[in-house]
């Protein structure tokens, strides 16, 4: 089902909050209004006080008057920024709704400034505007902007690329597993430093770690890389399937594969079991937020026995999610897009045991007696892979446990 109407979602600028933690010598300069700055400030919470690597060049009245002025102004801001922070090796000019609407050409500005600061700082651009991107799509746009700039992979050997920003701890776990499996060349996109971005070419095989990377996948395919189709690495089964897709592509012996992943897989299953009793049979609705909804619903349904009622997603990439969708129980409503008031009517009518939603809706639904799990935490917490599977299940079990323990 497809809906259009009022959407209660974040815009792509929010991606900056986790992306800037991942790429440690990158700076994200939003070109936007006070509203954009306010959003980042609200979303980043206490982080704004830690001399972060993002900021907003605020468009003011006089900038709206004429174009030439705007570009000069931007150059001045960038010069000052780079003088103040010489450690910055990669600068993203991030487009916002106001900059899109006034048609400020940030790609030209990025090219112009790249020449000016050549050799020291690379300057790229992407759009994180609300009119073009929803929440995690900001990461997609950012990574897709990186792809044309990646070096050509000239090696004859097949290499593996993990695509999507993962917490370092999770990334390291995966790298260890691939090494044990015998896949020798493994890269991550994004890398932790601007100078260490992976090369790409026809010998590149890539695994998407996140379901919201449609544009990035396309850009990589344009460079000749081949996507390995798999479930997303959530839970014991999802992670096994994801690793297996790589193992198959790299001709890893099946017995060896089983042996390498067995300990992690067993640990994941044991950890998930702690939450199984509380979650089994419970009905869950996802409101659209990050595109993680479909894989997470699959994990909760197949490994924890939950019953998805409605799984909302801001955007449904049917090809990347084909395997996931096939595993969802028959009768699950999949909704793409949103008309928030109508969707809330459906939630109220279905009264699921747990509703996964944004912070703008969570407290109001709680006060109506519906138990909720706020969705953003799923983007900020380490949830991928075997050793986070238990934590992931716990994220969903905790609100239900709390509901049961409170006597007030």
């Amino acid at each position, binding site marked *: 089902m497809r809906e259009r109407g009022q959407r209660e979602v974040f815009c792509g600028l929010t991606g900056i909050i986790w992306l800037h933690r991942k790429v440690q010598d990158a700076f994200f300069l939003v070109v936007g209004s006070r509203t954009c700055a306010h959003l980042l400030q609200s979303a980043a919470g*206490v982080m704004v006080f830690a001399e972060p690597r993002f900021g907003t060049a605020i468009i003011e009245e006089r900038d709206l008057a004429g174009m030439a002025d705007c570009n000069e102004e931007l150059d001045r801001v960038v010069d000052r920024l780079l003088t103040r922070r010489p450690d910055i090796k990669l600068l993203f000019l991030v487009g916002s*709704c106001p900059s899109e*609407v006034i048609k400020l050409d940030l790609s030209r500005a990025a090219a112009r400034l790249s020449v000016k600061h050549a050799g020291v700082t690379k300057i790229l651009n992407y759009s994180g*505007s609300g009119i073009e991107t929803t929440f995690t799509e900001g990461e997609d746009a950012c990574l897709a902007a990186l792809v044309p700039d990646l070096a050509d992979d000239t090696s004859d050997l097949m290499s593996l690329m993990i695509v999507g920003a993962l917490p370092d701890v999770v990334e390291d776990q995966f790298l260890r597993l691939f090494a044990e499996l015998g896949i020798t060349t493994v890269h991550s996109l994004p890398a932790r430093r601007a100078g260490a971005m992976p090369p790409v070419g026809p010998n590149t095989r890539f695994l998407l770690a996140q379901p919201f990377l449609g544009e990035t996948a396309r850009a990589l395919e344009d460079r000749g890389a081949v996507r390995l189709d798999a479930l997303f690495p959530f839970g014991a089964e999802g992670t096994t399937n994801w690793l297996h897709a790589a193992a198959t592509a790299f001709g890893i012996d099946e017995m060896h594969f089983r042996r390498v992943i067995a300990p992690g897989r067993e640990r994941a299953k044991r950890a998930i079991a702690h939450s199984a009793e509380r979650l089994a049979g419970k009905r869950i609705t996802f409101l659209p937020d990050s595109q993680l909804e479909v894989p997470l619903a699959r994990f909760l349904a197949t490994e924890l026995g939950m019953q998805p009622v409605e799984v909302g997603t801001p955007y449904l990439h049917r090809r990347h999610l084909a395997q996931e969708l096939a595993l969802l129980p028959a009768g699950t409503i999949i909704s793409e897009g949103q008309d928030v008031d109508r969707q809330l009517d459906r939630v109220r009518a279905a009264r699921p045991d747990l509703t996964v939603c944004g912070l703008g809706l969570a407290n109001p639904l709680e006060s109506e007696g519906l138990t909720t799990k706020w969705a953003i935490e799923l983007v900020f917490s380490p949830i991928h892979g075997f050793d986070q599977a238990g934590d992931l299940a716990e994220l969903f079990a905790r609100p239900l446990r709390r509901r049961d323990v409170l006597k007030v």
Partner: protein
Amino acid sequence: MRIATAMEGVHYVLHAPQGDTYADLLFTMIERRGKRPPVTYTTFQARDLGKDTAELFQTATREAYARFKPQAMLVGASCTAELIQDDPAGMAQTMGLPCPVVALELPSYQRKENWGAAETFYQLVRTLADKDIRPTPREGRRPRANLLGPTALGFRHRDDVIEITRLLTTLGVEVNVAAPLGATPADLARLGTADFNICLYPEIADTACRWLEKTFGQKTVRTVPIGHAATRDFIAEVAALAGVDASAALDTSNLPWWSRSVDSTYLTGKRVFIFGDATHAIAAARVARDELGFEVVGLGCYNREFARDIRDAAKLYGVEPLITDDYLAVEEAIQALQPELVLGTQMERHIAKRLRIPCAVISAPVHVQDFPARYSPQMGFEGANVLFDTWVHPLVMGLEEHLLTMFRDDFEFSDASGASHLGHGSAPAVQRHAQPEPTPHNDAPLKVEVAVSEPIHDLPVAATGWSSEAEKELLKIPFFVRGKARRNTERYASEQGIAAITLDTLYDAKAHYAR
């Protein structure tokens, strides 16, 4: 949004791109509201740009009316919608909605949040107030006042309204309408029946109060009752306007006695830096100097609209006014002034934390912890009690930390023993030395300590001509006056042209500066 959310029966349709709904969570999370803010966003996307957005706006408005059946609607444009040429005001007017529609012009590339709230409230009042009604004759009824200014996301507005209402009730004054917080459009219609207005928060209500003065001839109470003395002034002003006896309400807060008690002597002359919205900053400065005995060393605000008031107030304290919305400028000022206490917003709290200066929050913007569950007004006599506790608390703890530093060589205060109340940089409570275990009856709370950096004036100064004898003597002086003694001695020495500071110089200087 702060106005619409504060009120009942008002719905706001905001022409805005997808993503702007983030603002909802300020209300649902920071203020912990159990209801969605009454705001419908058109959430247009790139594919809608062109003619489509106007239609989207009209559909959203029509559906919002049908679903929420508000008594009045607000329509406006966000920063992005301002750039695309749809005209929410014009469109809403042609739609013929069966309720009053107030169109807002909020120039978002020029103005900011407080201005937007004031303008919205003013427009609502102007549209909805029934201009034909006037107060009934005073015989046989109590005087009536409107309480204007409290909003959603206001710093302690909820409790201030309760406190001031209680105060007015004691005086025999009836609250006609409190708005916008908790008011309906119908309530705004009967603003004219009040005898006078109380402008509780000028940032929000000033424009509306001026209009009411002009239209209904209602007088305005302008004293903001933050602090003990200001509350008494407020009562006097209300009593004069209402023609009631002020003494009924002149009970006292605990503040005067708490402040006079000897325990508070050490507060005298503490150097305090104050920053926030102009109203709270000005009120805080008065309390700080006149009621707690602090020395105000800096005063500023972030809302330019009230810059003049801050300048006037700064003159009273002989300080340079600081009017800026750049927190780096505030940080610079704090660093330069080296105050012993900072009163400010959430931002100043972080700055003070970084600079290791005690701090209390007196103004928005604030985080979730400053929308407390407990009753904690800033206004009225109970508000004065709250101010005393809130401001003095970080200082008492500050003194405690100094004592801990001073006695850090005593085993009870082992360096490695862990966190203090300030939390940052604390180590876990572990025994560093093989110290005798505390005896079981020694159940005093475990005093713990962070490695507090010595106050700057206490740092050993290498490049002076202190003799070792004088230096040793200096160490015998209690730490909290040691820095002053060192400074005075050095100043005295340089004034007298003495190169080597001996024991005698030290005592000569002491005698010189003795009063």
